[in-house]
Structure formats: C-alpha cells, structure tokens
C-alpha cells in the first residue's frame, strides 16, 4: 500500500515533469515563432540587396556593351558628338531599365553617364577592304609610332580570303620590356579547301599555328584574345604580351581586309589622319576616331528599404568581373 508520504512524492515528481513539459513546449513555441519572425523579417530586406546587386552588375555590363557598340558604330564623329551620343543612349537604356524594375520589383533605378569624368581613347579604323598599308601606301609601317607604347583594348581584322595572297603579312605587337608576339598571316590551299594560316610567335612562350576556315570567304580575327570570332580557330593573342604596346606591320600589301584597333590614348604624329578631318579620309585608308575608353557612370537605386547612389568607372575594353 502506498503511504500518503510516498504518494505525495510521486505526485510531486509527476507535477514537476508536467511543469517541465509545459516549459519545454512553451520555449519551443517561442523559439519557433522567433525563428519564423526572423526569416520573415530578413526576407523583406534580403531580396532588395540581391536586386540592388543584380542592378549594379547588369547596369555595369549593359553600359559597357552599349558604349562598345557606339564606339564602333560611327567613324566620323568628334569627341563631343560621341559624348552626347553616348549620353543619349545611356538615358534611353536607363529608362528601359527603370520601367522593367518598376513593373517587376517596384523600385526606381537610374543610370547616368558623366561625359566630363570619362576618359577617351583612340580607335584606328580601316572601314573598307584594302591592303593593310599606311596613308602613303607603305607596306612596312607602325600603326601609331615606333616605341610610343599605348594600352591596346581591341584589335580585330576582317580578312577577305579570296583576295589575300599566299605571301605572308606580319604584325608584331611589342611592349617596352621587349616582349613581343608576331602574327604571320597568309592564304593557304589545303586538301580541305582554302584557309587562312595564322602563325603566332610569342618571344617568351613559343609558337602556335592555326588554319582558320572562312565564312563566306572571310575570316574575322580577334588578335587580342587570339581567336576567330566564331571561336573555331585559336592562337596566341596579344594578351600574351602585357602592358602598353606598339604595333608594327610588315608586308601589309599581301593581305586585303578591314581592321580596327583601340588604344587608350591617341598617338602623336601618326601615319594617318583623324577620321573627322576635312576632306574625310577614304574608307579604304586608316584613320583615327575617338572612343570612350573608360566611362564614368552614376547609378541610383531607390527601394522601400534600400536607397543609394553610386558613381564608378566602367572599363569599356577590359572586362571586369
């Protein structure tokens, strides 16, 4: 038989256990609701941070792509006209972005191009098919000046394979330290048809040779990355030579094509005229036109919980991550 004393002890322990159970349940409910509240609260702010980061990334990329296209769209515009052209197009782009962000996220965004704080470079362009010679038709020449080194942001050549000869044309890109890469290009007939042979010799690395297939009798070369724009032909590019460079052409009469290259600044006493000079140079001759090398941009993001304005530089020819 259970005595009153023993029963009392047993009931005390039971009541204690029940009290403990209630306490644990109570704490778990409080902790759980705290956790839910925490997730709910952070979920309000976190998407805006993500959206702001997305906006920064996309606007940076978008402005870069837009200016790159504008830089290479016109040949005879002066600095001030290019500046206002870029400003207008960035404004239109900004309006489209703002509409998109307002309708999808309910945020206001804005992108403004600051021409006064942007840096200009120089684009040497031969817009129509011809020999790769200078204004005086010299086959051996510098695209710029000997030993006047500039950062190279772009160097493309669209070769007319049918009219290009089997004799080689050499293009040597050198930096002040003596490192250089030499591209030797010529037409070659193979069992699989006519191709453009591109041999690339890097002074401190070695040689590569590629046979590039034409598309509609043309081969579009990207000398900076060392590939054709279709990506099916690769060779050592100018990236193998760091820093500012000068560019020498030898045997330029052997190749027919169009080309463009972009330096970070113009070259003094160059063997070509400005494209906007009068009379306008013929499209078959090289000439120099301005480009926006580095764009100064202000972005604005206004959400319900996040507001900021950010001013930064967009490097048009050097992709930043």
């Amino acid at each position: 038989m259970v005595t009153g004393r023993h029963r009392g002890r047993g009931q005390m322990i039971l009541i204690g256990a029940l009290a403990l159970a209630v306490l644990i349940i109570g704490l778990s409910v409080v902790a759980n609701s705290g956790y839910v509240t925490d997730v709910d609260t952070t979920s309000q702010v976190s998407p805006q941070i993500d959206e702001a980061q997305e906006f920064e990334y996309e606007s940076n990329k978008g402005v870069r792509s837009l200016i790159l296209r504008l830089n290479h769209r016109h040949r005879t515009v002066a600095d001030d006209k290019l500046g206002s052209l870029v400003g207008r197009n960035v404004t239109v782009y900004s309006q489209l972005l703002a509409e998109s962000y307002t309708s999808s996220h309910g945020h206001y965004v804005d992108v403004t191009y600051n021409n006064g704080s942007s840096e200009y470079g120089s684009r040497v362009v031969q817009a129509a098919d011809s020999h790769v010679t200078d204004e005086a038709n010299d086959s051996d020449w510098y695209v710029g000046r000997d030993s006047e080194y500039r950062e190279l942001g772009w160097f493309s050549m669209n070769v007319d394979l049918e009219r290009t000869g089997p004799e080689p044309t050499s293009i040597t890109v050198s930096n002040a330290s003596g490192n250089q890469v030499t591209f030797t290009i010529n037409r070659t007939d193979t069992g699989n048809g006519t191709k453009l042979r591109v041999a690339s010799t890097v002074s401190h690395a070695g040689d590569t040779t590629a046979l590039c297939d034409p598309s509609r009798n043309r081969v579009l070369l990207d000398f900076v990355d060392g590939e054709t724009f279709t990506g099916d032909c690769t060779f050592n590019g100018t990236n193998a030579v760091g820093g500012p460079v000068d560019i020498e052409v030898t045997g330029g009469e052997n190749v027919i094509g169009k080309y463009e290259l972009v330096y970070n600044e113009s070259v003094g006493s160059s063997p070509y005229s400005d494209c906007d000079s009068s009379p306008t140079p013929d499209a078959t001759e090289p000439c120099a036109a301005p480009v926006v090398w580095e764009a100064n941009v202000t972005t604005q993001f206004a959400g319900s919980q996040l507001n900021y304005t950010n001013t930064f530089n967009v490097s048009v020819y050097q992709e930043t991550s």
Partner: protein
Amino acid sequence: MSGDSRGQAFTLEGLASALILLGALLFAVQSVVVTPTSSGGVDASTQADLRQQADDILLATARADRNDLSTLVRNWSQSSRTFAGAVHRHIGYGPEKPPSTFGVMLNQTFTQRSYFYNIDVVYRPRNLSTGTERLPFVYRGEPSETAVSASYTVTLYDNQTLTARNASRNVELWQYDTNATNGENGYYPIPNAVKGPVYNVVEVRIVVW
C-alpha cells in the same frame, strides 16, 4: 519497500505519459511550420527559401559563360514560332525541362521537390505607353496564392542574332519581323523597342509555388 516501488511506478508512468504528450505536441508544432498546406501553399520561411533559390538560378544562369539568359531568350525557332524545342507557343516548354543547365537547375531545385513553376519573358512593346507584354517560356498551371516570384533583367542588342540551332547567324535581331502572320523576313515577337544599339530590355520572371 513495496509502497516505495508503487510510488516510483506511478512516477515513471507519469513521466512516460508526459514524454509522450510532449513528443506529440512538439511534432504537431513543428509540422505546422514545415509542411506545405493541402492547397499547395507554402509557409513564410519556405516562400523565402523558394524565392532565394529562384533568384540564385537566375543569377547563375545570367552570369554563365555559355547558354546565359540572353542566349535562352534568343533561342527562338522560326518553324514552330516558339522557343526552340518547346512544346507549344501557349505553354512554352510546359511540362518539359527547359534546355541547358538552366533547365537542370530548375528541375533539381523545384520539380524533383514537387514544386511547380512558370517562367515568362516580359518585354517592352514598341509603344512604351502600352505597358509590357509577355511570352510564355514555361507554363505549368495557375499559381497558388502563396506563390513567390523572382526576376532578372536582360538587355538585348540590335546586332545580336537568334541562337536556335537552325537560325541564321547572318540575320540580326532588328531584321526580324514582329508580325507572325507576315513574317517574310523571319519572325521574332520581341520588337526593337528603341532607337540605337539597345534592342529591348526583357525580364525573365519565375513564379514558384
């Protein structure tokens, strides 16, 4: 001694029943938070997770070296007049997995965990005052009330081309007709919204439930 034993037995019984009760209550409390409701809705923390996952998929695809969001938006078939490989122009890829890594990520993140999603490509019409229009990329039904959305903005340019396997690489976006009934020059429904190198700014929008 027998009195003590019975007392301890009562106590142990009491403790055991308390533990059972406690376990049942805890299970019930936890179930309320993590289990989707019968209507297909999801709780707040799951909603936040789904939104974040959709955002991450869009971000990862937008920054991919190959088959990024821009490539997928331009993956348009002239013959079927919808996205290349899609089931039908009204439901896009519908029940099928969208192409490339984008489709794999969506499949692993949502479909395999029994969540549904729709994806639209929202674009600006030529006349900006008429609001936006949309193309169904994936349509899998009417979203529930607790559905969440995530979107990513993609810029298209005049001189880009369609990316479908049989699309011509020599025809740029601005050269396509936006009128499906005419279509002499090929058909791509997203129009050239503004003058200049920018073609359109489109939004890829995922709705998950």
